[in-house]
């Protein structure tokens, strides 16, 4: 029985305006396009994008293990900020509990996104460095997803 505490803060310049990036979080179909690892199979994804609303995603990781992501939205500022808490289960065991804050700021080139998380990683089943890796992967995919929708100038 153990808890390892960890925090991360990652920033990305994204080639789309904040409203576009925000929609990639608020719309379940748009979020499906990037939220998850390459090769993962999403089986079910529901999202009530409002304060107090919940998000549930379950699927199978590339190595075959089933996982589940269950989140609760705590704070929203349209186009600017998203705060949610979530836990992750793998093979039926809770591996971590996290608090995530996404901040969006408009720039000349689009959006500066800052992703801050703190996590309680449980029983050696999850680890802060894996979360950094995973979140960087998500940001890569998010960047690709919003670039694909960027208006042609």
């Amino acid at each position: 029985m153990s808890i390892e505490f960890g925090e991360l803060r990652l920033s990305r310049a994204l080639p789309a305006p904040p409203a576009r990036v925000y929609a990639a979080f608020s719309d379940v179909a748009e979020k499906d396009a990037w939220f998850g690892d390459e090769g993962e199979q999403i089986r079910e994804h529901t999202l009530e994008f409002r304060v107090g609303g919940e998000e549930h995603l379950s699927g199978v990781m590339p190595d075959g293990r089933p996982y589940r992501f269950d989140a609760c939205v705590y704070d929203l500022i349209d186009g600017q900020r998203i705060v949610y808490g979530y836990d992750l289960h793998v093979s039926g065991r809770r591996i971590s509990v996290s608090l995530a804050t996404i901040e969006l700021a408009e720039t000349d080139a689009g959006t500066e996104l800052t992703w801050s998380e703190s996590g309680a990683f449980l029983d050696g089943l999850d680890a802060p460095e894996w979360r950094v890796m995973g979140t960087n992967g998500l940001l890569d995919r998010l960047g690709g997803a919003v670039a694909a929708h960027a208006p042609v100038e």
Partner: protein
Amino acid sequence: MNTTFGSFTVERTVPAAPARVFAAFADDSEKQAWFQGPPGFVSKAPRTFDFRIGGEEFNAVGLPDGPAHVFRARYYDIVPNERIVYTYEMYDGDTRSSVSLATIELGADADGTRLVITESGVFFGDPAEAESRREGTEFLADAIVTHFAGAVASAH
């Protein structure tokens, strides 16, 4: 929009066994004995307490003629007598001032229980809120120690 982040750890030795300390968090009436605002605070709204994974806790306290200080928690992980993982929001009146991830770890030691509370929060508005969270948690940790120290004293 002003967003800041802060984290801290508060540790205490509590003069009671881990199972007793756990009950002080898990049992509604036991928790009410120590989980209170500063002197003079009164309840501003009906409280709720649902200590189970996925359950929520709510209370609102404040000075009789002052704003409500609201606490709303959601329990994510509970291992009896060992740990509790939860998030909580604080509000000043209707305004959300922070959201925190908190863990409570209990370990047996020679004097009773080693209590370790770790929190990491996001703060909206006044950056001083991060420090006031720490002060609030220190205050509550002291209240737990006093609660059990009193029980030890009255048993003798």
